[in-house]
């Protein structure tokens, strides 16, 4: 087992829902979806973001090989109230792609991280 950054397993897009950011995490290959489901849990994502968020929800879209996360309290008030550069959560997606997840050696080799 080794670990790789999510950027090698998924692509992503994010947006806002009030004071929450959403991150849609999409498997780069069909066989990576199960890894996302197994490793990118609510607990791990909450731990990854730490005090950047106040709560995490996860939804599964196996048809699109995607997970959708709602990151609550991520936008410092959100909308027009927020003072953040990323007040609309547009690049929270890329912050999630920094997360490290364990994969087996075959997958690690496939993504060039063996």
């Amino acid at each position, binding site marked *: 087992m080794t670990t790789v950054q999510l950027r090698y397993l998924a*692509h*992503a*897009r*994010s*947006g*806002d*829902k*009030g*004071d929450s950011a*959403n991150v*849609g995490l*999409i498997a*780069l290959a069909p066989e990576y979806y199960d890894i996302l489901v197994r490793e990118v849990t609510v607990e791990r994502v909450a731990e*990854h*973001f*730490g005090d*950047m968020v106040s709560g995490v929800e996860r*939804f*599964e*879209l*196996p*048809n*699109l090989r*995607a997970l*959708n996360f*709602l990151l609550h309290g991520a936008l*410092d*008030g959100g*909308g*027009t*109230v927020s*003072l*953040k*550069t*990323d007040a609309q959560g547009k*690049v929270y*997606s*890329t*912050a999630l792609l*920094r997360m490290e997840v364990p994969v087996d050696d075959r997958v690690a080799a496939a993504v060039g991280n063996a």
Partner: protein
Amino acid sequence: MTHTVRIASGQGFWGDWLEAPMRQAQGGPIDYLMMDYLAEVTMSIMQKQKSRDPSRGYARDFVPLMERLLPEVAARGFKVTTNAGGVNPRGCAEAVLDVARGLSLERPVKLGLVTGDDMLDRIDELLAAGHPLTNLDTGRPLSDVRDHIVSANAYLGMRPIVEALAGGADVVITGRVTDTGLTLAPMFHEFGWALDDWDKVAAGTVAGHILECGAQASGGNLLYQWQDVPGLADPGFPIVEAHADGSFEVTKHPGTGGVVSCQSVTEQLVYEMGDPNEYITPDGVADFTTIQLEAAGQDRVRVHGIAGGPRTDMLKVSIAYGYGFKAVGSLVYSWPDAYAKAQAADRILRQRLQDLGLEYEQILTEFVGVDATHGHLAGPPDPEIAEVELRVGVRARDRAPVERFTREIAPLVLTGPPSVTGFAGGRPAVQEIVAYWPALIDRTEIEPHVKVEWLES
């Protein structure tokens, strides 16, 4: 039955690429051009404009755009659906009619006008009738901010647009109709689907969600293999080719830039998504976990299998209210020790604000190049980093402390840490914050007020 309806996306927001609608009109056959102009805060901006000048309150650049598009509409016969009317759809329609009359069109054009979403004048009546208009996010009653309300609009669905199209409208102008309604209406009008065929509503909702952000479904803002997206200087905006069975293909005009792929469509599908099992619109509830995508050739994705459920009894309401004031100032510090200099400047600025006795709801410091977008996840910066931008924002209910803050940035140039630049823009502007209050209202309070009219050039 081989009837196909081609619905083209022309604008994904107020301020989107101005060339896109004409390229959609001229680049190949289309039956409908949908143009979405309204975001949550847009209505409040328009309401402020209308309060200063009653003839305004809509997307003004829509009118010169229609001056270019109307000859195409008259000649080619496609129809336009848009919510460019904002808080003054009648004013918008009249301005478009004026323009139409000044053009030598091949034939007169008929405008459909949808009104009835505006509930600003009815707020007290609705509160008195027992509708609390509770904030969906905070649970607070609307009475908290009653005196500060700027605009209030219910989100209407496709049905009045279907009616306008059935009455022969070439161009349908609405106020706060959902983005998805602009795409759903052409499909229901053309295919004659029953309005309570919920799977068809769900299919059209997904099509609308794919189209409503313009090129974001066809290669724009696409993270997947972004370096390989071709021709973004001339991106083809997405087009839905819809079929009577509820399936559709997503594509774009030949010879345009960008890309339509399962990846580009999927990135748009998950954008601003909540619970994918229940994507709620005024017209029905779509289940995004039923969507099936298949690559179907060059820049072509087939979408099918979509299921949904009945519409709810409630409509969403978008209320905007005056919240307070904010300002954001920035300065750039260069190597050596760029980050340390920016941090020192931030400490000095905060000390001065405190010594002046100024109080804020929040002071937020970001170091652009270090932590502005990824926070602590970015890790410590390279000690040799070439430059760091100090970006400080403040927010207060009163204007005065924010105003004073804007005068405390420039002095740092000569009274703070060295190697500072990037101040050519002058003092930061004080911005009035108009905040968004999401709520629900019984559909029965709104729908009797919705009206469709037809105006001819």
